[in-house]
């Protein structure tokens, strides 16, 4: 059974749909890229899956032992966070909130898990540093470590490389690839870069007026992708 199955979803605000007729699933080990133009409702889709918005219609089901609160989420950064007085360790530990539940304090295991995830993201030496003093790429790794504290099964990433320089971007993609291939974590990632989706993903969901969902190979042959790629090629030429 799939971790996540969405059927005939319609999303939007105050009754007005921005996206409709979305159906797709995420299975263990999948790497799904969600592509589409800006404003096509990609972030809304993520937030709906996480339970932050209600869908206008359609169903979202979780399976294979995954609960909604067990998804690790890497949101786009807010202005508040860029200037936040907190250490890296404090932020990563806050990812254990779902595990702690009603308990007021974090347990020893949770603290160890936070430490392990710091290590996984190569952040040990920054553990006591202040978040606002880190570079953009380091901040993204901190948020990724926090997301890993919340999940062992599935990550949802919202434009994880926005604002990063090409070198750090490549490192970030490599890191995500490793989490997917080596640790078997399913990944669902929003990106506006179709070429990234074609390089990294196993599956593609194209959101917009025309919706496409399928494997990367199928997407490559679809007219939607071709139009996108030609446009991009034209722009860079």
């Amino acid at each position, binding site marked *: 059974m799939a971790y996540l199955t969405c059927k005939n979803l319609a999303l939007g605000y105050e009754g007005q749909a921005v996206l409709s007729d979305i159906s797709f699933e995420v299975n263990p080990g999948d790497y799904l890229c969600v592509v589409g133009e800006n404003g096509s409702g990609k972030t809304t889709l993520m*937030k709906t899956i*996480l*339970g*932050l918005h209600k869908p206008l219609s359609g169903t979202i089901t979780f399976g294979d032992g995954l609960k*909604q*609160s067990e*998804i690790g*989420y890497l*949101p786009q950064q*807010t202005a*508040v*966070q860029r200037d*936040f*007085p*907190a*250490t890296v360790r*404090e*932020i990563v*530990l*806050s*990812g254990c*909130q*779902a595990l*702690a*539940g009603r308990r*007021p*304090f*974090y347990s020893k295991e949770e603290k160890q898990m936070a430490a392990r995830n710091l290590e996984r993201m190569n952040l040990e030496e920054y553990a*006591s*540093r*202040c978040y606002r*003093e880190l570079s953009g790429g380091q901040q993204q790794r901190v948020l990724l470590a*926090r997301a890993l504290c*919340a999940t062992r099964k599935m990550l949802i990433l919202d434009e994880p490389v926005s604002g990063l320089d090409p070198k750090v971007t490549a490192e970030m993609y490599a890191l995500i690839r490793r989490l997917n291939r080596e640790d078997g974590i399913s990944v669902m990632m929003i990106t506006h870069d179709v070429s990234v989706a074609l390089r990294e993903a196993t599956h593609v969901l194209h959101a917009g007026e025309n919706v496409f969902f399928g494997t990367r190979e199928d997407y490559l042959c679809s007219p939607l992708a071709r139009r996108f790629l030609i446009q991009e090629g034209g722009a860079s030429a």
Partner: protein
Amino acid sequence: MIDTLARYFQFPFVRYALIVGVLIALCSSLLGVTLVLRRFSFIGDGLSHVAFGAIAIAGVLHLAEARMLFVMPVTVLSAVLLLRTGKNTKIKGDSAVAMISVGAMALGYLIMNVFSTSTNLSGDVCSTLFGSMSILTLTKTEVWLCIGLSIAVLVIFVLFYNKLFAVTFDEDFARAAGMKVDAFNLMIAIVVAVIIVLAMNLVGSLLISALIVFPAMSAMRVYKSFRSVTICAASVSVVCAVAGILVSIVASTPVGSTIVAADIVAFLIFSLIAKIRK
């Protein structure tokens, strides 16, 4: 000077003032950190104006002894309403706060004038706004009420510290992790309302925001972890409150504004330290 202080401390009302002052300064600074970081400090300002209106009505209704029992629920209710309207897209959060707070102020003063029962109206208004004398006229019941509520606030703060951090840093993430963020925000709003009503005794309704904002801003200049910012804000706030109360006794200045003046000095010192470190 020490003789003067020793003489004053023989009076129970001076000791009460010091106890209450320290507790209020402590509570308001703890919540101040999260309010400032979440850009919610305006809620403190709005609520204090509401409390002013409520006190005016309580005065007209001759609720002198039991006025806390009237002012507290009204302010808590407004806190809940403000939080709701903050999310309403039709009336923007900041203008809603402005409308409620200025409206409550104007109506409060109007009511005080029309139904005046006092011979010294402007004195009453002034002490409600700037808190001048009311801290020295606390009854024993009010002191105990203040101690009880402060302890409740402290316990809530310690128990919910980790959740408070999670929500302050990233509300969406906390919500996705299954936290009941709306209920949590409601609790914060209620606690803030309680603190504001308590703080009216100390600094008056116009100066409450200072107790919430200044210690947090001072601590954020220098410290870099959430925990140290919280501890530093609490310490700065308590030290400034004690200093302000002592100075006001010796120099016979108004209590509230002296405490705020001490907070401003602390902020300048911390800003300077931050500059030097860079």
